[in-house]
């Protein structure tokens, strides 16, 4: 379609002299927008009081029903990233970002209709399915482009973008609260109008990314940079296509690495607020616990940038080695910082902050790890498939935390004791991740593309 030809890959090739530092803001615009999904919980109470206004009444949706909107969106994130990753590699980042923006905004608009007509299934389709596809496309769209622009610092580059996803909730939450307060009347909580405005604002914000992103020209490399003559054995100079990567042991080892790291992180996120209150009864109340949750989100975001940047220097395997060994010790120690043992709020908060930084770091470092293993050729598509580990962890983590805790409490354990069991299980999961990471070896030659000699700067997709 000529009208949309500006989205084509060949129209996004950078001119000589284009500064690569324009690409991370483009990626950030997408990730800061779609990161809003983590702030969806601010709509939970208003959506459950659309009829009753001040309280839930008969006919209002239950919070447990509303929770499915978020779950559906996250599942669709994983599925669409896995399904559309290969298309993205050929279509280019601009087309994928545009499709992401359209889906994400459309999700809000459809949900507006769902609120106005009070039909929850319309919101499931809107924010959950259509918006969720936008999340998946947006999440992986800048990854291979950033890696091509920053062959010298792939961890830093992808960390910058994925940090945006962690920070998106910090914008989305206060924005939604302020918009709902603005549109609220005596008979309307302002949710429908908020959806319309947020859809429009996010679409425009993402368009900045769409129009700014560029891919490097064939053979481009940073000035004064030459690839190491003797690269690490774990950094390939060859390429593996997505379908082949999917059947390598390395893919599944990294799948386990990501899944274990995320599941353990969810062990903290899922119970952060009640845990700090239960472990420090009388010292930490609900308000301070809210502050604790905010602090954790800062470390989650900062860790994405910090650890992925560190991985450029110490290597990806060593970075995950740090996550799993240090994480295992810290998860084991965490319950002993509580009121019944050391009674140190400072130590508890510090340990949780480090653990959350490593949770975020795990997300941000994985694209560079994949690039090291499989080359840059279809790294976005491979990343997309690996994100199914995140979807799995999103189900596994809460299930493990909640059921273990309920079982413990039902069998007479006190609240603090139940946390101890859960956290020690998380430490055990990190041991599994540690072993999986330890087993990662270079991809065997039989999986390489036949003509995939070192082309680190760029490689035209088929």
């Amino acid at each position, binding site marked *: 379609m000529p009208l949309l030809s500006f989205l084509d890959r060949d129209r996004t090739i950078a001119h000589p002299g284009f500064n690569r530092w324009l690409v991370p803001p483009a990626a950030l615009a997408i990730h800061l927008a779609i990161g809003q999904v983590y702030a969806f919980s601010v709509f939970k109470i208003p959506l459950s009081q659309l009829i009753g206004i001040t309280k839930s009444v008969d006919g209002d949706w239950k919070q447990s029903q509303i929770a499915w909107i978020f779950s559906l969106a996250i599942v669709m994130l994983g599925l669409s990233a896995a399904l559309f990753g290969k298309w993205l590699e050929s279509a280019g980042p601009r087309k994928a970002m545009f499709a992401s923006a359209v889906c994400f905004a459309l999700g809000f608009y459809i949900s507006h209709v769902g609120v106005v007509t009070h039909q929850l299934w319309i919101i499931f389709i809107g924010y959950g399915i259509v918006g969720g596809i936008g999340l998946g496309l947006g999440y992986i769209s800048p990854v291979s482009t950033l890696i091509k622009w920053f062959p010298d610092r792939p961890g830093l580059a992808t960390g910058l973008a994925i940090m*945006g996803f962690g920070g998106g909730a910090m914008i989305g939450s206060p924005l939604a609260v302020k918009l709902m307060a603005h549109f609220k009347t005596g008979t309307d909580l302002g949710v429908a109008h908020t959806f319309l405005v947020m859809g429009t604002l996010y679409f425009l914000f993402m368009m900045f990314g769409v129009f*700014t992103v560029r891919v490097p020209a064939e053979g481009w490399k940073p000035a004064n940079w030459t690839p190491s003559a003797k690269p690490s054995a774990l950094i390939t100079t060859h390429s593996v296509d997505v379908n082949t990567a999917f059947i390598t042991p390395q893919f599944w080892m990294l799948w386990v690495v990501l899944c274990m790291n995320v599941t353990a992180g969810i062990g903290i996120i899922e119970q952060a607020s009640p845990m700090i209150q239960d472990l420090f009864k009388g010292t930490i109340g609900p308000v301070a616990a809210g502050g604790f949750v905010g602090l954790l989100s*800062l470390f989650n975001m900062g860790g994405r940038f910090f650890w992925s940047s560190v991985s450029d220097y110490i290597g990806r395997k060593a970075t995950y080695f740090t996550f799993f060994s240090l994480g295992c010790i810290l998860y084991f120690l965490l319950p002993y910082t509580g009121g019944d043992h050391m009674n140190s709020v400072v130590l508890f908060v510090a340990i949780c902050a480090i653990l959350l930084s490593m949770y975020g770091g795990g997300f941000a470092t994985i694209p560079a790890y994949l690039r090291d293993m499989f080359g840059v050729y279809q790294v976005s598509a491979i990343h997309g498939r690996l994100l199914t580990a995140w979807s799995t962890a999103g189900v596994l983590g809460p299930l493990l935390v909640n059921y273990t805790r309920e079982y413990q409490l039902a069998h007479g354990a006190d609240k603090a004791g139940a946390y101890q069991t859960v956290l020690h299980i998380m430490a055990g999961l990190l041991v599994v991740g540690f072993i999986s990471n330890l087993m990662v070896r270079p991809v065997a030659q039989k999986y390489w593309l036949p003509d995939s000699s070192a082309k680190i700067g760029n490689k035209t997709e088929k």
Partner: protein
Amino acid sequence: MNSETKSSPVLIFAAWLFVGIPAGWGVYNTVHNSMKLFQPPVAQPAQALPTK
């Protein structure tokens, strides 16, 4: 054609500002909220607190 047009530093700064302002606003809000952790607890009338 091999003409090289360098990206303007102003353009690069503006691009970072465009994403930096909303991100900074979000971080400011979160830091402000997280400060509540370090405030001394306020004595409240006895009432059942939610545990979850």
